[in-house]
């Protein structure tokens, strides 16, 4: 199975971002994280600029610790920014995310793909992606 979160048209008018040489996201979790963040902005849980300040801070912290810039992963910094903002806003505590991530990690074999249907693991269904 493809790891793409959705079936993307390869050609035609919907394809141009790819025609410029690369996918917008490198992994399904990156696109999910992006979509979740933008959905929270759209529903005014926080503003884009609030998020952006966190992102700038997260990027800056990483760069301060990695002067050579090797191993940079943009969406990891994005995740850090979102986690810290949701924690500070009292929406989702970091400890809660920790616990849930551990529960998800303990899912039985066969439930290790983001594009699975998550009905049978110990964690609740995260999302269903065609």
């Amino acid at each position, binding site marked *: 199975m493809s790891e793409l979160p959705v079936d993307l048209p390869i050609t035609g008018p919907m394809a141009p971002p790819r025609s410029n040489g690369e996918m917008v996201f490198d992994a399904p979790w990156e696109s999910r994280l992006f979509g979740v963040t933008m959905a929270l902005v759209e529903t005014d849980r926080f503003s884009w600029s609030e998020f952006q300040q966190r992102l700038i801070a997260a990027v800056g912290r990483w760069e301060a610790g990695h002067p050579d810039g090797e191993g940079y992963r943009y969406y990891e910094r994005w995740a850090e920014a979102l986690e810290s903002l949701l924690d500070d806003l009292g929406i989702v505590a970091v400890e809660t995310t920790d616990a849930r991530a551990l529960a998800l990690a303990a899912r039985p074999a066969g439930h290790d793909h983001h594009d699975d249907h998550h009905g049978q693991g110990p964690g*609740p269904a995260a999302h269903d992606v065609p």
Partner: protein
Amino acid sequence: MTAVPRPHDHPDVALRAEALESLLLERGLIDPNVVDGLISRYENDVGPMNGARVIAKAWTDADYRQRLLDDGTAAIGELGYSGPQGEHIEVLENSGKVHNVVVCTLCSCYPWPVLGLPPSWYKDPAYRARIVREPRQVLAEMDLALDDDVEIRVWDSSSEVRYLVLPERPDGTSDLSEEDLAALVTRDAMVGVARVTAP
């Protein structure tokens, strides 16, 4: 039950992202259909083809070109492109004497409505640091050699202002339609790290 290795390079953050999404979902803070729609929109509908249409129109319509340079956001909005990260777009005109190139030194600010989401190299620490320090060298490494008498202006995007480069129209394209011209305009040209070339 033992933990199963994840298929991605960075299992921890992938798991945390999934954890976060499942928690937000349970609490009714996100609608999965909205999330799907937003992803699809930025993967499929919003991208450099929007900016390419803006550039092609500016090349073929002098009045539009002027409006675009005077108020980028409004002129871009005339073509129906607006939205997040497009609140204030400034258009920078390249010429034989001046070459504009765009960066975001702090994170990844980018004019989404006209270019979509930024490519990896735009977000990369090396590009973000070096294009400011040694733009001529970095552009040469990206296969854009500029003559020494061409002034390079590097524009640092901010939360307030995003930039779109208006590249030079290539010679030998006077008989092309606006649509054909749009097909020539690349994302890289609109960031300022490439030229538009005739077919």
